[in-house]
Every structure is written in structure tokens, then in C-alpha cells.
């Protein structure tokens, strides 16, 4: 409903999405104009001017990245704020679930932020090269990034429009209960032991692979780290829901990831998902570098940059492991060794 946009919180989220989408689109349009006139290898005054404008595009995209990441946080905060207006909603989950596009919007925001992050990785790599051989393809990649940002904005606006404060929403436990009743495989995946093992394994493997690249960059190691970082978020999610959330919230059936952002949960969601984003985007960035290795034609620059990315990715995945292990360890200590799940 149009009146939803009168809510200052919703307006802030829409404003943020509009600004970041505007920047992405402006970057894409400017970039395409530059590509048409680009003459790599030339050193004319015109080419130098184009290169300066190209730096503008890159700066705009870096600001857009910051805004996209901000948008992810704002999505959670705004949805949480709207809980009071939707019956049955206990946290952001209920608010997002009350519309058809809530979760799709969150997914789109995540993908858009990741796309911006990967583009910035490509840009930083391009800057390390003596000649701007990657600039054309870098600007060409702005098209899908801009499209994703536009999709994100569309879903944010649609979500805001679809919000109906007369509906009755559900808490995540209703979904979980339904999954249990129907014997859904999702429930088996959320069981503590398999979820925990999968999560630790995925995050640990990603961290290890990134650390190997940071120490000894190479094509095989970089591809491995990139692949592990790409699947890592999906693999880690069951552990976040099935193990971390119950230990943070103190209830074996409370599997809500959004409640992790609340103060009652120590706000663990922020460093946990922040580390996850950092680790996975910089890890996937290794794949971006490998994809452009041949075109770059500078093995020394490739190796140097992969070391940097490997360090950041390893730090991110280590952060995920620490944020995941901390509440489990704390609960065990405080409970004197009693499991939150009772008999495991």
C-alpha cells in the first residue's frame, strides 16, 4: 500500500536502495560510454582522461558496495522494527514471511552486495596491472551488477508495497513444526550433529584453503578456495540455524537466524554474518582473479593480489568459526556441560 512508504523506517530502506541502485546504474552507464571510446595501450590525452573517469566509476561502485552491505543490515533492522505492527511476527522472520517477496528481496540484496564486492575485487586487480587490459571486461561486468541492483530495488519497493498490517504472520517455529510434521529432509539437515559437522567442515575447509593461497598462491589453490567460499554460506547456514541459534537463544527449538541480531542474543548475528560475507566474497574473488589470469598477463601481480585476497578470506572464515563456536562454548560452560538439546 502506498501509505506504507510514509513509515520513516521503510522510507530509509527505500532511500538507501535507491541511492545504491542509482550509483550502480550510473557506474554502469558511465562505464559503457567509456568502453566505447577506450583504447587500451594508447597513451593519448584522451585516453588519460578516460582513465581518470574510469577511476570515478570505480569510486562510485565502491561507495555502492558499502551501501549495499548497509542495505542488508537495514533490511534486518527495518523488518525487526515493523514486528509491532504485524500480528504473530516475533522478529524480522515473521515480517519478511508476511509478504510474497520478503525473502526474495533479502536474497536479491545479498546477491547484489556480493556482485558489487566481486566487481570491486576485479577493479582492484585491474589497478595492479601496468596496462589497463581488464578495463573493458570490468566495465562490461557492470551491466549484470547494475541489473542485480535494479532487481534489488524493485523487490525492496515491492516488499514495502505488499506489507499488510492486517495479516497474521508466523514465527519461524511454525515453519519448523510443519517441516517436522511432514518429515521434511530440511529438518534432518538442521539436526545438531550433521549441521554442526557440515558447518565446521565447510568453514574450516574454506579458511584453510584461503590460508594456503595467502601463503603460496597458485591456480589450483585459488580455484579450490574460491569454490569452497562459494558453497560455504549455503553449507554453513544449517549450522547457524541448527546449532548456533539454539545455543545463543537458549532454546533447542529456536532456530531463527534473525533473532541472533537482537541484543538478547548478544548481537552475535552482526559479526557472524559480517564475517561470512567477507570470507565468501573475498574467497570468490580468487576465482575472479583466476578467470582473468591469462588476460592480465602478469603472473607476479596475480600472485601478489591472490595473497591479499587469501588473507582476507581466511580472516573472514576464521571469524565465522569463532562466532559459531563462542556461543556453544559459553552455553556449555554456563550450563555445566548440559546440552541445550538435552540428550543428543
Amino acid at each position, binding site marked *: 500500500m502506498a501509505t506504507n512508504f510514509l513509515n520513516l523506517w521503510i522510507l530509509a530502506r527505500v532511500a538507501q536502495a535507491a541511492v545504491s541502485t542509482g550509483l550502480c546504474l550510473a557506474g554502469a552507464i558511465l562505464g559503457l560510454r567509456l568502453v566505447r571510446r577506450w583504447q587500451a*595501450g*594508447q*597513451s*593519448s*590525452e584522451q*585516453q*588519460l582522461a578516460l*582513465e*581518470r573517469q574510469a*577511476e570515478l566509476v570505480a569510486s562510485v561502485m565502491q561507495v555502492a558496495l558499502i551501501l549495499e552491505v548497509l542495505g542488508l543490515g537495514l533490511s534486518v533492522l527495518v523488518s525487526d522494527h515493523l514486528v509491532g505492527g504485524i500480528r504473530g511476527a516475533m522478529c524480522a522472520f515473521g515480517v519478511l514471511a508476511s509478504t510474497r517477496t520478503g525473502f526474495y528481496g533479502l536474497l536479491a540484496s545479498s546477491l547484489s552486495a556480493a556482485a558489487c564486492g566481486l566487481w570491486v575485487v576485479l577493479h582492484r586487480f585491474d*589497478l595492479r596491472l*601496468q*596496462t*589497463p587490459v581488464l578495463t573493458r571486461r570490468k566495465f562490461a561486468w557492470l551491466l549484470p551488477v547494475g541489473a542485480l541492483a535494479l532487481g534489488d530495488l524493485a523487490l525492496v519497493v515491492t516488499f514495502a508495497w505488499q506489507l499488510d498490517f492486517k495479516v497474521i504472520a508466523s514465527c519461524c517455529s511454525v515453519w519448523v513444526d510443519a517441516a517436522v510434521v511432514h518429515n521434511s529432509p530440511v529438518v534432518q539437515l538442521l539436526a545438531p550433529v550433521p549441521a554442526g559437522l557440515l558447518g565446521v567442515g565447510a568453514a574450516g575447509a574454506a579458511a584453510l584453503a584461503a590460508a594456503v593461497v595467502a601463503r603460496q598462491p597458485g591456480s589450483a589453490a585459488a580455484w579450490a578456495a574460491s569454490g569452497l567460499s562459494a558453497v560455504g554460506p549455503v553449507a554453513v547456514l544449517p549450522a547457524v540455524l541448527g546449532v548456533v541459534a539454539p545455543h545463543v537463544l537458549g532454546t533447542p527449538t529456536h532456530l531463527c537466524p534473525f533473532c541472533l541480531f537482537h541484543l538478547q542474543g548478544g548481537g552475535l548475528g552482526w559479526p557472524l554474518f559480517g564475517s561470512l560475507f567477507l570470507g565468501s566474497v573475498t574467497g570468490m574473488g580468487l576465482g575472479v582473479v583466476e578467470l582473468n589470469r591469462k588476460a592480465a598477463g602478469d603472473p607476479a601481480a596475480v600472485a601478489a593480489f591472490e595473497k591479499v585476497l587469501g588473507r582476507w578470506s581466511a580472516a573472514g572464515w576464521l571469524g565465522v568459526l569463532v562466532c559459531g563456536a563462542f556461543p556453544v562454548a559459553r552455553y556449555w560452560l554456563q550450563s555445566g556441560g548440559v546440552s541445550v538439546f538435552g540428550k543428543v
Partner: protein
Amino acid sequence: MKADRPIMVRAIGLTKRYPAGRGEKTALREVSLAIPRGEFWIVNGPSGSGKTTLLGLLAGMIAPTCGEVQLDGRAITHWRDHHRALVRRHLVGMVFQEFALVPGMSLEENVFLPLVPQGGPDRAGRERGRALLERFGMAAFADTPVERLSAGERQRGAIIRALVTDAPILLLDEPTAALDTENVRILLELLLGLRAEGRTILATTHDRRLAEDPRVDGVLSLVDGALEP
């Protein structure tokens, strides 16, 4: 010219043309020069002869229409804009006509300006800057806004800024333009001292006090964009 010294500044067939009205104006024609390390050279010529354009090309600020520039053996002509800036950060220190100090900032802030994008002066940079201020007799003016300094003081401040990155090459554009005879003498002594440290210096001027000094290593004459034989 000492034959066994490596060439720090080399220009090969540098030409620069600008659009002018319906046609073009040629600011430089086929200029070639080679300045060995640790030498002090002058490019002498009247106003409009292309001296500032030559320095701009050598510092990588502008691109030639054709020709090549090599600094410390590295051809920078085809470098991208991003890396050309690094030339001015690490290879070349420039002193501009009218000094180009930023008004409203103190002398010390102006001196450390080139180091800001690197995270500001580190310990070595700070010590180097302070030592230069002392050496050039400007330590007492470190906190003075530059607009309150005399022409000679500003000139020395500009030279200190050009040296703070410890760049091996120093390019000066009309360094004596606003100076009286005494300050020209002081400037010359400073430049000769820098040469003695092994820096390569190229100054453009139409000031005969500088061009006719017997202690410079070489003088090139630039007239209408071309070097006279």
C-alpha cells in the same frame, strides 16, 4: 656530462600538439634529451617556448602526441594514469611556477602533502621532512600559513615538498621567477648541494643568472618548441 653515469631522464622525439581553433598548435617538436644521474641541467628559452609542457611530459602529467619518456630506465609513456601518479609520488619531485603551495595550510602541511595518500608521513618521512626544513632554514616557519611567507621562503618550501618523498629526480619550472638576486644565489647553492647528494635536477628558466652559471652541467635552448643544436 660524465660518460659512465646512467641516464635518469631521457626524452626521445617528444612532440606535443594541442587543438587550437580550427587547427593545431605544436608546443613541442621532436625534443630529445638525456640527463645522467647526479647532474644539474637547465632548459633555457623565452616565454611560450614549451618549457612547462616539456616538464609536464617528463613528469607524466600529460601524454605526448608522439615520442617517449624514460625515467630511471623505465618507459612511462604508455603507463596508465593510475601509475603515472606514482611517478610523481616516488620518482619525480616537482617545483612549479608560482610554487603551487596550498593557501590556508601551514608550511609543514604543504610539505607532507605528497605523503597523505600513502597514509601520511611515517617516522622516516617525518624525520626527513623535519630535517629538510632545518637544512633549508625553514624549521621556524613550519606552522606558518604559507600565504604569510615571502617569495623566497615559499620557494624553499616548494623545494622541500618536492624532496620529502626522497624522489631521485627534481624538476623545477621557472624557479627564479619571483626571486631577487640574493634569493637566486641561495637557491642555486641549495640545488648544487642536492646535486652533490646524487639527485638529478632539471630546471627550466629564461633567467640568465641561472642559465649562465658555470657550475651547471649543461644548458639546452628551447625555442618555439624545438631544441637548438
